[in-house]
């Protein structure tokens, strides 16, 4: 492939979303300016940007609180989900018992449980939020890893048997590597979920220092530009989680790099 062709391909990927994004922001700005919308209804994109720069330390502090809650829950939930799935893989009834709970947690607005958890800890605690994130992440990762452990290549398993390999060797050399892509599918799914749960769990009282409480406070109030600056902060944390989980998968599961774009 020569340079011009590569450049044209890159432009075909980058240009359409760029055009759409710029058009959208321009239309927003124009609409607010032309029809003279009050800033407490909807701020101009330029005002949001200014607010984001000027009050960056506020946005940063709130992002760290919520981001940490989500991160702690994501890491704990992923690890626990993975370990429990591997340990209980030999006992089919465990996943038979966990699966109904996983289905239920996925179907109901489980985040309301935070309201209950808050009662069990002191009011200034971040632990109920972190527990809530951990629970949500756990089920996603557990289900994926269990699925991965069961979908082993028949030929590879027969091969290991022909080597008279021990169950531990088979686990280490066949089952776990085969499970890795499933584990990371779980983590990638759970990463944005973790942030959403961390944000929403701030709606149920407790300390008002995270992005969730700040956003709902400011967006319901009159300083909407600051509210949007917080939203922008949340979006950036979300992108960070997205990029981080994908990067981790890229590093740990290098053999799956091809074809991931499909």
């Amino acid at each position, binding site marked *: 492939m020569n340079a011009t062709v590569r450049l044209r391909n890159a432009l075909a990927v980058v240009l359409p979303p760029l055009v759409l994004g710029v058009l959208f922001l321009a239309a927003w700005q124009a609409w607010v300016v032309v029809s003279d919308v009050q800033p407490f209804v909807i701020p101009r994109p330029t005002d949001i940007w200014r607010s984001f720069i000027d009050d960056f330390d506020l946005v940063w502090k709130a992002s760290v609180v919520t981001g940490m809650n989500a991160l702690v829950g994501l890491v704990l939930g992923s690890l626990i989900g993975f370990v429990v799935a591997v340990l209980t893989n030999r006992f089919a009834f465990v996943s038979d018992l966990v*699966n109904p709970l996983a289905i239920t947690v996925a179907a*109901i*607005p489980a985040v309301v449980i935070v309201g209950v958890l*808050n009662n069990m800890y002191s009011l200034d605690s971040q632990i109920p939020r972190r527990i809530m994130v951990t629970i949500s992440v756990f089920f996603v990762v557990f289900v994926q890893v269990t699925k991965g452990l069961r979908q082993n290549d028949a030929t590879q398993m027969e091969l290991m048997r022909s080597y008279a390999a021990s169950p531990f060797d088979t686990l280490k050399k066949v089952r776990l590597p085969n499970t890795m892509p499933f584990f990371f599918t779980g983590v990638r799914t759970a990463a944005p979920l973790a942030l959403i749960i961390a*944000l929403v769990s701030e709606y149920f009282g407790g300390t008002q220092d995270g992005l969730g409480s700040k956003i709902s406070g400011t967006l319901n109030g009159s300083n909407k530009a600051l509210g949007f600056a917080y939203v922008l902060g949340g979006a950036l944390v979300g992108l960070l989680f997205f990029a981080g989980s994908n990067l981790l998968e890229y590093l740990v599961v290098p053999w799956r790099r091809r074809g991931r774009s499909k």
Partner: protein
Amino acid sequence: MTDAERQRRRTRIRRASMFAVAFVLVAVSWELYKAVGPEKGGTIFGTRILARTDDRAMPHIWDMFSRFSESEVRGGEDSVFVVVLRAAWYSFRCALAAFVAGSLLGIGLAVLMARFRFFERALMPYLVISQTVPIIVLAPLIFSLMAYNSRELASKTWLAAVLLGVFLAFFPVAMGTLRGLQTTPSAPLELMDSYAAGWWKTLWKLRFPNAVPFLAPALRLAGAAAVVGVTVSEISLGVRYGVGRLILSYGQEATSDPPKLYTAVFGAAALGLVMAAVVVGIDRLLMRNRPPEAV
């Protein structure tokens, strides 16, 4: 009854009983922890990690259920059960509306993206990003936009909750449908070409049916997303009749009347499960003539 049917029935019964056993186990561990756990919470490595177990923090399961039959407020006419049921029904209708509208929007977008490559390229990055960004926090904004545009809408906070549900629900449907439309095997596509069938005819006769197995799991995600979107927005907007609002206000009474909060939580759970049942029904209907193991 054939062997396969009997087998399938046995699995179904087994699965249903596993559901029951799982929940009994959760209830038992709740009571067990309450019995042996520290009353005032426990500290590990200097942080409060173990939950408090007193009646205020962890009421007995039977107290939660008996609270349903008592009246909601002292001297009030309606029992908690009636109030929670009414609220859950209200939220369910909102969630159903969000689910239907979101699914239609998702299918429409998928067709648009499958037909015009430019739309796919322009929209796809935003669709992906929109999933990494917590849209759910935007409910107040949607409401203030609505209220600004029309005075009449200013009283309809529920509409903002539904719109947010739509926002959350359309994504999985759009992605699933698009994938289904695009993974149509080439042999039948060439067959349709040989009939000189146009793009829309091919879409209707071939690509849509091919997308159905992909649509079914997407609808399940959309159903759950609609419920979460509506309930959470009810909380952040303070929609007066919904179950989300009930959780918030019962939560504030939790110090004096702990079991009451749990009745609202059960109401929200029931709402989610009923929606899941609706989606499973749609799934069955869509997949009725497909081989049992498709996708």
